[in-house]
């Protein structure tokens, strides 16, 4: 399975629709402080089903929707999609290409889509269950998190192992 692209609209500082394509191998994302690099990580974790606002540096759903700037009004909703090439049937579904989408409104409602048809969060979480990309996946390390893996107490570290295995 390959990650093909990320599409972001209205998520945190991404006021305009933005598309990032991912080739094979190594992709580097660079930019000044506060430009929006870590917001890309938050968007990917969010669309994969992350439920804890705190893990994404927010307190409530509105913190994830573009909140306005000196030149722009705030937006009413955010939508993030992640597309995978599934020709190797890594994900247990028949589609050759799988796109998961998450949409949230300021009212707090969240909608999930699998290849453009509505589904539940549970469906997305089940799809990715055995891939190691679940909630506490070691494959996605947020800024500042790497040292805390070592500083955690042995019993808390066990929790991470259980989730990751």
């Amino acid at each position, binding site marked *: *399975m*390959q*990650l093909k692209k990320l599409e972001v609209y209205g998520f*945190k*500082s*991404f*006021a*305009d629709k*933005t598309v*990032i394509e*991912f*080739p*094979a*191998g*190594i*992709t*580097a*994302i*660079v*930019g*000044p402080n*506060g*430009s*929006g*690099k*870590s917001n*890309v*990580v938050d968007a990917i974790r969010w669309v994969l089903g992350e439920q804890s606002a705190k893990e994404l540096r927010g307190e409530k759903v509105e913190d994830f929707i573009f909140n*306005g*700037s*000196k*030149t*722009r009004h705030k937006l009413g909703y955010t939508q993030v999609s992640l597309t995978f090439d599934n020709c190797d049937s*890594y994900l247990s579904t028949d589609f050759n290409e799988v796109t998961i989408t998450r949409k949230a409104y300021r009212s707090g409602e969240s909608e999930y889509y699998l290849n453009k048809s509505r589904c539940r969060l549970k469906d997305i979480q089940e799809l990715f269950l*055995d*891939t*190691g*990309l679940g909630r506490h*996946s*070691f*494959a*996605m*390390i*947020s*800024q500042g998190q*790497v*040292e805390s*893996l*070592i*500083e955690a107490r*042995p*019993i*808390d*570290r*066990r929790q*991470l*192992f*259980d989730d*990751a*295995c």
Partner: protein
Amino acid sequence: SREKFLEAFYEIKAEFESLFTNLFGGGQATLLLEEGDILEAGIEIKAQPPGKKLQSIALLSGGEKTLTAIALVFAVISVKKVPFYLFDEVDAALDEANLLRFLALIKDKAEASQIILITHRRRSMEEAHLLYGVTMEEKGVSKILALRLEDKNAAATYESN
């Protein structure tokens, strides 16, 4: 179940030991299960950078902790074949020598999986097949530009020197 956990634990432990020695260019480390019921026991880490005595990991330096954590991350992920890795500035605390060993590991893993690195380090940017620059030309609004290889030097204005 106990068997399933123990099987995964010993696989991760073996992988962690070899990755640690590889990343530190020597030394040794291991994972230990605390006393008590296997299904609830915590996981201890013992680490010994090259030439030093075996000590509690609390005494490791900032860069040594980062490197040990990277070895642990790759060890745990090796049990499941993940399609992509996403790392946000994990290379920030590493000195030049450790950074090069980390990048050698990344290049090795990039043959089987996609790797997305958010970084300020010039050396890391040089290893990327594709470079994206995130900017806020319009303050408060993020835009993404794909930078060509020769733009890499232009990207140097983003890097942290």
